[in-house]
């Protein structure tokens, strides 16, 4: 019961508390305490030092343990930076947004933990819809036209998407008609155990609906547009939270149904669908990197690219699957650094347009260097973890039955790297038109500290490659029945 309280009830109570206590500092302290507890406990659960006993509808398995840790980790850093972020001067209109910030973010933690820990499709659906509801008002933080439009589009598109996922869940029920599962409820593991008996036609339909519906939330092309608008217009910590954890919550749903479909004849079909979605995402990122002129949108497209790579890993299977799991972890960390430093750039230049940002390295050198390092990390330059996870995905593709995919993927990735690099180097090095030569001094802030810690984490986890992480990922792989 303790774990249920800390993972789900406590954040919910804190959200309620934040409604009544208006002082931001108190809201921050208590939210941070909750984040620390959440991170501590999910680490204990992950390390196997704490055995959970959750009520009906909730349970822990290797996959949810792993994703919960990613969520806790991202959430902790985001909350840590939130107060200094909220102290920044904003337009008077946006002051209103601050009032509900901690309330919503705590509610987000409740909903997201519930979604990660759920072992029932219905519960998963309710919780993941609640994550959308908590994040949508946060997108509208700045209270300007762009953020309003982004919020509307995100709320609408994702709600329709999630409604589609619900149809998928109903079709899953239909696929169980006439089997031993009929009359039992929609528990994941019951379905996994009896997957072979399910009706293949309905199961296929169910996979299509769940995958397409949740794609709006994962950001898999062609359903990515709402997600791009939302991530690029949300305040940086929220963008980090969305890219680092919310997309994975939706991916979890797809992985659950993928797990059910595995022992059936529809498995190949599901794999192909995942691979098509992944390649489309890479293609979209490849095309838009040529013309994107807003650096936060660029980062959002980078998320589309990396989630695409993860889906590709899932679809190809084997070693690529292991790579995809590592990639989910490393990508979440790298995205936090990128969005936080991008937030600093936005504050200094008051613009998200690439053309209006110049000489970042001389004007705000600390942020500039960290942004550069984060870019190198996300592009898979060693010793960043992304390098190792991508290599695993590539190796997996090469030794799979579709090695030609590697050529397509590498072609896309190369151009994405070149174009992103071009944009970022222009921002960092290009001189402004009528700019006086100046070397800026920049105070060392919390965002810098967090970025450095996370960069070290990104490299050290990859180099040290902790046994427990490896074992857990292998255990997930075994659950998915992959042969290595």
């Amino acid at each position, binding site marked *: 019961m303790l774990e249920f309280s800390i993972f789900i009830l406590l954040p919910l109570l804190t959200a309620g508390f934040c409604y009544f206590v208006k002082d931001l500092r108190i809201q921050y302290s208590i939210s941070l305490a909750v984040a620390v507890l959440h991170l501590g406990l999910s680490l204990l659960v992950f390390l196997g030092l704490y055995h959970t006993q959750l009520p009906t509808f909730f349970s822990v398995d290797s996959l949810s343990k792993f994703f919960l840790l990613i969520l806790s980790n991202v959430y902790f850093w985001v909350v840590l930076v939130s107060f200094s972020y909220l102290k920044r001067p904003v337009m008077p209109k946006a002051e209103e947004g601050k009032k509900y910030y901690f309330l919503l973010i705590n509610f987000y933690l409740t909903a997201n933990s519930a979604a990660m820990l759920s072992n029932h499709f*219905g*519960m998963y659906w309710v919780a993941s819809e609640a994550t959308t*509801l908590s994040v949508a008002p946060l997108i509208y933080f700045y209270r300007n036209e762009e953020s309003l439009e982004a919020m509307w*589009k995100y709320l*609408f598109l994702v709600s*329709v998407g999630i409604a589609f996922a619900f*149809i998928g869940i*109903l079709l899953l029920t239909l696929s169980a008609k006439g089997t031993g599962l009929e009359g039992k*409820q*929609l528990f994941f593991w019951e379905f996994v155990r009896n997957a072979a008996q399910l009706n293949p036609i309905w199961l296929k339909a169910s996979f299509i609906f769940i995958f397409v519906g949740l794609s709006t939330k994962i950001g898999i092309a062609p359903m990515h547009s709402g997600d791009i608008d939302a991530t690029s217009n949300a305040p940086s910590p929220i963008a980090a939270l969305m890219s680092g954890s919310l997309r994975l919550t939706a991916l979890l749903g797809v992985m659950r149904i993928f797990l059910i479909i595995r022992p059936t004849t529809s498995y190949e079909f599901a794999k192909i669908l995942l691979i098509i979605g992944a390649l489309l995402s890479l293609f979209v990122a490849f095309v838009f990197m040529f013309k994107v002129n807003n650096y936060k949108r660029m980062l959002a497209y980078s998320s589309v690219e990396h989630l695409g790579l993860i889906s590709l890993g899932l679809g190809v299977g084997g070693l690529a699957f292991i790579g995809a799991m590592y990639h989910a972890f490393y990508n979440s960390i790298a995205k936090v650094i990128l969005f936080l430093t991008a937030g600093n750039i936005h504050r200094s230049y008051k613009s998200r347009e690439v053309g209006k940002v110049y000489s970042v390295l001389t004007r705000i050198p600390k942020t500039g260097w960290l942004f550069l390092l984060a870019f190198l990390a996300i592009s898979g330059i060693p010793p960043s973890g992304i390098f190792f996870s991508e290599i695993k995905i590539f190796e997996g593709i090469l030794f799979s039955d579709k090695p030609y995919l590697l050529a397509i993927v590498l072609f896309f990735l190369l151009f994405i790297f070149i174009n992103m690099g071009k944009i970022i180097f222009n921002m960092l090095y290009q001189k402004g038109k009528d700019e006086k030569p100046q070397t800026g001094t920049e105070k060392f802030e919390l965002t810098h500290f967090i970025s450095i810690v996370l960069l070290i984490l990104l490299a050290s986890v990859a180099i040290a490659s902790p046994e427990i992480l490896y074992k857990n990922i292998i255990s997930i792989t075994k659950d998915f029945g992959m042969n290595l």
Partner: protein
Amino acid sequence: MENVLSILFCLSLFYVVVTSRVKAYVTVLRVQGIILAILLMIPFIYHFSIFGIILPATLLLVKVFLIPRYINKVILDLDIKRRIEPTIQQMVFLPIVIASMIVIFLASNILSKSTELNVIPFASGFSAIVIGIYIIMFRKKLIVHVCGFLILENGIFLFGTAVASELPMMIELGTLLDVFVVVFLMGIALNRISNTFEGFEITDLGRLKD
């Protein structure tokens, strides 16, 4: 009984397709809410239980009173023009809808041979899902998009009763709550949109592009 109600549900869909008044959408949402609540109550006519009545009562409250009232309030507050602005005319829209429904009913009939399902509620639910999407695609007003989304949700609900989904009550209530909050948030967003932008149409939202 289920079949009769489902056919009534389909008729409400036809009405929504041909009407050009925003208010009519709200009325249709109310009617659909009542139909769904009656559908849920049928099993309890013979085996009455207080516990079982909670879900239909909540559904009635949310889908017949709260949401339509709220949408009406938004329409009044924002002084939205009463006529919808379609991108295609009703006389083109209606044949498209009828053709889609024929395909859905025929397909459901074929599918029912391999799996046991109630064809009429199943096909009606699916038609509502498709028509909800059409409304979102072919209408310009944002408030009508919200109504389209709700028709889609109603369709899913009917579809759920047709496949006899076994979602526990707590989760059914959770889904209702989620839908209500979505509409509530959309209402707030519409309010803001009316203050920030010129109008309430999808064509006004075009700032975010690459």
